[in-house]
């Protein structure tokens, strides 16, 4: 019980319940099936994006190219159906392969060059994004197969079908980081790279694995967005960056690596989805979402830092 009370995410869960209740009282339409459906669809897309960044944060790296990979995959996914007549399953495999390849390139370059992932993924961001825009000439592909369109809009009972992809991914990530050897090694490497390498964990394998997984998640999120929008446009992924960092950080992830609470990240995504929906219902300017998200990131990292200070585990002097 005491362990339960000390989890990262308990405060966040209480906040979500209270906020949801307050909103339900102020705006009864918040609790209608339609509104809940919107929240769940938003949740299932953003959670995949957030975990794609989270898995990189876990090793203390970052992936600025996440949205650009999602965009390139979305374009390839749509284009292969429209121009090459790929059946849906082949287009999905093609998209996954592109995502894995882009992620692998990020990981391999970061490992081989010894540079920070920030600068490597800034470069690949521009490469992937330029390629998506160049291939499409900034137009949209609308030759999406009916199966994909149906997946984006159909229900499975009361739940949107996109949730059926997101939930297994969340569970798999939780199992991978919590129970499996490569996942544990990734967290160990993120917590203390030098100690991890001395205990026999291969740096190259960890870095490449994490970036490749991140590419895979970006690919899945990219294709889910195509299904949702019913169209493959080269603006997909443009708005992922802030949310992809905000959700894990609000959930209690440490940016220097070593700790990624999967449940906390999900709650962070839920907070973002709730804010989005609340602001739609209250009919306020969408730019309030931006301001509010920024403030939430600062509040969340500030709270984490306070907790570290109380436990005496925070850095003594780190100014950069």
């Amino acid at each position: 019980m005491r362990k339960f009370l000390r989890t990262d995410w308990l405060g966040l869960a209480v906040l979500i319940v209270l906020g949801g209740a307050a909103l339900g009282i102020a705006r009864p339409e918040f609790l209608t099936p339609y509104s809940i459906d919107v929240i769940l669809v938003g949740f299932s897309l953003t959670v995949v994006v957030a975990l794609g960044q989270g898995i990189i944060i876990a090793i203390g790296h970052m992936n600025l190219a996440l949205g650009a990979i999602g965009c390139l995959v979305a374009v390839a996914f749509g284009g292969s159906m429209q121009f090459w007549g790929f059946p849906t399953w082949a287009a999905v495999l093609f998209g996954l392969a592109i995502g894995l390849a882009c992620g692998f390139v990020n990981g391999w370059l970061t490992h081989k060059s010894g540079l920070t992932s920030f600068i490597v993924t800034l470069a690949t961001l521009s490469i992937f994004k330029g390629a998506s825009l160049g291939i499409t000439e900034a137009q949209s592909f609308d030759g999406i197969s009916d199966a994909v369109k149906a997946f984006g809009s159909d229900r499975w009972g009361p739940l949107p079908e996109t949730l059926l992809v997101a939930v297994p991914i969340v569970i798999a990530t939780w199992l991978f980081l919590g129970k499996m050897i490569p996942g544990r090694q990734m967290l160990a490497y993120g917590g203390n790279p030098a100690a991890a390498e001395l205990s026999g964990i291969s740096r190259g394998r960890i870095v490449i694995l994490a970036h490749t997984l991140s590419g895979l998640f970006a690919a899945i999120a990219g294709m889910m967005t195509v299904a949702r929008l019913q169209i493959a446009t080269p603006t997909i992924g443009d708005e992922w960056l802030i949310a992809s960092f905000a959700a894990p950080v609000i959930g209690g992830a440490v940016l220097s690596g070593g700790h990624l609470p999967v449940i906390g990240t999900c709650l962070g995504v839920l907070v973002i989805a709730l804010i989005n929906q609340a602001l739609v219902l209250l009919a306020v300017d969408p730019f309030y979402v931006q301001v509010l998200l920024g403030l939430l990131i600062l509040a969340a990292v500030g709270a984490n830092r306070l907790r570290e200070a109380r436990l005496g585990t925070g850095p003594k002097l780190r100014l950069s």
Partner: protein
Amino acid sequence: MTVQTRLRAISRSNSFGLFVAILVFVAAFHLLANGFTSKVNVYSITRSIGIDGVIGLAMMTVLVTGGLNLALGAIGVCSAMGVGWALQTLGLPIWFSMLLGVLLGTALGAINGLIVVTTRLHSFVVTLATMSIFFGTMVLLSGSNGFNELPHSLTGFGRMRLFGMVSPLLLVMFVVAAVLFFIYRYTAFGREMLAAGANPFAAKLSGLPVERLFVSCHALCGGIGAIAGMMASLRNGAIVPSMAGPLGADWLLPAFLAPVLGGTLLAGGGISVLGAVLGTVFIAVISSGLYMLQLGEFWIQTALGLVLLGAILLERGRAALALARSTRR
């Protein structure tokens, strides 16, 4: 140092390599791309060197701390919008409005710096948050409406062509670069910022006010970002919230490309003003040349990413080679 060793040092420096690369590319594009050295094209190249150069120099001042500033574009646009508001809504004189703009940029930069120093969080996450906050607040205050009735003297300055082919924005960039060069080379303030960035612990132990210096670096970045924002508005002939892309993120690539190509260390403490300027020239030449070769606007972005990747890998390889050479002796 003999003349010979000095020459050898120059020929091995990063800036010299960039300089040679620029000459090679200019010659190649002159031969291959029709109209690359025409007056119209030279004008557009000098204009983008002017704006992107100031953006790169702004980022460099905060790379000194070993941190970064994702909010640079947001600060630039916010400050330019502030200038537009002062000019058009309040009707203040031009010089005073611009001064207010630079002050606004400096203040926003100082906010970044203060948060970084007091919370001891990495500047990446702090400026990720403030990028969203600054830009969102600006859009809410302005209602996404730009300012398009700038005084004629200002828009005239933006359109001016010196010698028929040089944009005055290039001269603004040279002034900013010269001031920064002077600060980092000859003033105690500049040397202290470099020392604090190179090794905060050692600097702190030697009695430097490291926190205050870091706030100054961020404030300097904001102030120069404001200048870049005004220069970008002069190019457009109007001040619009979307001029640096969503959340001002379109500035990020030029902001990092130029200093990194020029040999600025991302770990902090090592800068090169000359390198950053040459880096900007290099990028402008490549972008313009590829455009003239009709590569297509979008693929240029891909090419720039490849250039950044190639340059940093080359730099790595050269550093490794130098190490191997020195240890063999």
